[in-house]
């Protein structure tokens, strides 16, 4: 499954700009950034409810393929701008974390 495949699912909304497509290695779920930092696999689709600037820093450093902000948690415009600057792909969904990750996992 590629990141672009997420775009075609109506439960997910792309918050950031057009992107260079990339393969997703697996879904990864975690809200504690210190743990995500140590464990998020490179290329994974990171599903979380933690939406702040540090989430973006962790995403860059672990080289995940994209972030999915679950549970309809808001991701403000300043964060979207920052994600765009750093070429981080961010989706939002109203689904719970597990349901969102299960959809990504099923597509792999």
């Amino acid at each position, binding site marked *: 499954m590629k990141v672009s495949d997420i775009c075609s699912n109506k439960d997910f909304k792309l918050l950031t700009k057009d992107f260079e497509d990339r393969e997703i290695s697996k879904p990864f779920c975690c809200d504690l950034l210190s743990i995500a930092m140590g464990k998020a696999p490179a290329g994974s689709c990171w599903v979380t409810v933690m939406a*702040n600037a540090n989430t973006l820093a962790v995403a860059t*450093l672990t080289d995940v393929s994209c972030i999915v902000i679950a549970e309809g948690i808001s991701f403000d415009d300043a964060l979207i701008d920052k994600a765009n600057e750093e070429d981080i792909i961010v989706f939002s969904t109203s689904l719970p974390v597990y349901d969102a990750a299960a959809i990504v996992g099923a597509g792999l």
Partner: protein
Amino acid sequence: MPDVMELVYEVSNEDFTRAGEASSDVKRKLKKLGIPSDVIRRVSIALYEGEINMVIHAYGGKVTVTISEEAITMVLADKGPGIPDIDKAMEAGYSTAPDNVRNLGFGAGMGLPNMKKNSDEMNIETQIGVGTTVTMTVKL
């Protein structure tokens, strides 16, 4: 590539959400130098955890990164309160981080263990009331 390259960053303690500027910049530079991606990932993770610690547990500080043919060395020096018991601080899950930091997803007590795991060598020098210097090396 020059024999040795040195990068220096001031880490400010004013804005916790901005922590990570040094590690992001180092990551970009290592990528340009063609350093293997697993090495970049380890350096980035170790450095970011170190930066976060300087911001939440000390009052910011200075990061010096040296890149040579053999290794990447990171020195994180702060003038913070120091660490009373290093063995305890190194335990996974031990944390004195305040609630506002926990609410942002940090303070799980995994920082120092992550730093140790991702570096080939790690050394902590600390003095109560004076500061802490963490030195980490990742071999190339």
